[in-house]
């Protein structure tokens, strides 16, 4: 549904997005990560037809965005970071203004806008947007991104200004539109959020895609780059025996508890050494470093 081939953008000879190759399938919820200045926003601007690439192409639903930006915009819904509206108009008036560009009939507009305002819980708000809180603004932004019932929804930092209830509501909406078969592209710094809603991830660094795949695959790629070990935690009601294995990096232990640092999962191999206390084992589990920890480790180093 979204495909980029050697997508490149240069500003004054400085390569902001460098030969980016992305492939996102229909119905996928894709998380786009990267440190500040990685080129995420520039990529989004090219995907939404707001700026032209220096080189390469980006296709949305088979439409070449640079050649046919209007057609592409008709199938895209976009929520910009820190979305803004016309402060002198109500939320409904703002949406009605934008909806006119899609050639929707007045009745169709009214029906769609009422539905969307209800979806983002702004249906009872009558004040002008100038008096909206940032969270309300963000919710209205989500409504405007869904105005044209788009096939592809691109969300830039969608939960940035939302309170916990708003975040939960946002997740519900994302799941709902994902269930409808829409392709969702989310750019966010909130990694826990990304992990909760996205099925696949891509990480951009210095304009280049450095990792792409399912959340687990990307975590694995990052773990390899970061060298942060996994931990096997063992707790027992009986005193634990001495444990040894060539892949054990470090053991921190007390009489009944051991934290074993390893580079791979060796639970099966060490379980034999735990035979004598097997009836006293309370738990044995593997702890992998979280996406956030891995991300910070890799990009702090850069």
């Amino acid at each position, binding site marked *: 549904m979204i495909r980029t081939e050697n997508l490149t953008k240069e500003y004054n000879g400085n390569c902001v997005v460098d030969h980016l190759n992305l492939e996102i399938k229909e119905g996928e919820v894709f998380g786009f990560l990267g440190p500040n200045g990685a080129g995420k926003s520039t990529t989004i601007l090219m995907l939404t037809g707001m700026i032209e690439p220096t080189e390469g192409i980006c296709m949305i639903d088979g439409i070449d965005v640079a050649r046919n930006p*209007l057609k592409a915009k008709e199938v895209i819904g976009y929520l*910009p970071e820190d979305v*803004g*509206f016309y402060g*002198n108009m109500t939320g409904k008036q703002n949406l009605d*203004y934008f909806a006119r560009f899609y050639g929707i009939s007045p009745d169709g507009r009214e029906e769609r806008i009422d539905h969307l305002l209800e979806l983002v819980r702004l249906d009872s708000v009558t004040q002008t947007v100038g008096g909206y809180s940032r969270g309300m603004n963000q919710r209205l932004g989500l409504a405007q991104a869904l105005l044209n019932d788009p096939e592809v929804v691109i969300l830039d930092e969608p939960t940035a200004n939302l309170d916990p209830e708003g975040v939960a509501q946002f997740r519900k909406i994302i799941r709902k539109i994902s269930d409808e078969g829409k392709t969702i592209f989310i750019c966010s710094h909130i990694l826990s959020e990304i992990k909760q809603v996205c099925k696949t991830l891509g990480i951009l660094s210095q304009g280049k895609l450095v990792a792409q795949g399912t959340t687990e695959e990307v975590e694995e790629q990052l773990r390899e780059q970061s060298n942060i070990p996994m931990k096997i935690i063992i707790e027992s009601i009986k005193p634990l025996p001495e444990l040894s294995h060539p892949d054990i990096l470090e053991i921190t232990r007390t009489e009944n508890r051991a934290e074993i640092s390893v580079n791979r999962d060796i639970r099966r191999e060490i379980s034999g050494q735990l035979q004598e206390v097997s009836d006293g084992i309370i738990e044995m589990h593997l702890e992998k470093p979280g996406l956030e920890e891995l991300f910070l480790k890799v990009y702090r180093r850069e």
Partner: protein
Amino acid sequence: MGVHRLAIIARKETLDHITSKKFLLLLLMLSIVVGIGAINGINDYQGNLERYKSGDSSNIPSPLSIISPVTEAIGYYGFGAIIAIALGFDLVAGEKETRSLRSLLSHPLYRDEIINGKAIGGILALTIAITAVFTLVFAMLLIQGIVPSLYEFSLMLIIWLITIVFLASNFALALMASVIAGTSSNALILTLIILFVLSFFIPVFGAKFTVNTMLGDNPRDEITIVRYYANSEENEEYLERLEDKQRDYNQKESAINDFLSLFSIQSNYSALTGVFAKPPWDCIDGTPILSFNEVINKVWSELLFFLLYPSLFFGIAYVKFMRMDLR
């Protein structure tokens, strides 16, 4: 460019302008100033009419003379520029500040439709304002029993049209600054600086500097001294040569002043409205002494610069907006 999308933007912009408190307040202010100007013009007209009736004057006063104070309020006293700049300076910068520009651009429309729609919306709002003001003046004339002839009415329409172009020039200047500057406040400052340079710096300081540089000292002082001591034939001849030099100097000085005045939007407006509101080509028994083409020939340079400005400012605004970095 889609006419439908352009119309959506122009309609929204026009409605935004004419329903804003800023616009209504400025229109009220303009109406008051123009109304006072019209009252003064009517009083002068009636005084002149009385003098004509009593035989003290041989000139029949024209209702067009009432328009002069009106165009003075709009042009010379700057009320037209104020309303036009107030409408234009935050059109793009304001949208950048509130981030609504990116939201708008995410929907299916081209950039040029936005800038063109904004320009059309602003000019339509200004046309509404000026039409309201001219209608007010016309109503005042009729209430006072002053009925312009068809010929005078057509001249008033020309002045109305010139006034719209004058406001459009100032509006285009503010729009250009709004695209160039990052914020509304910077856009306003930039507009005022450019206006100051065009209306005052070039025609006044620029003219003085150019005259001094190109023509040197004015022979006037030397003539005064020579006249004081002139009592010989030799001095008389010298004085004549100096007086020729003075005439030549005055002509060149006048040409420089006239040329540099062309840079002032307000001077061009005054020159153009002046020629129609106080016609030197006034009619005798309903027959104009000069044809319309002959009149245009008298003010062609002013007309050229007058039409050049809105095109230039809008052209720059258009190009800059199309290349604007949206990051």
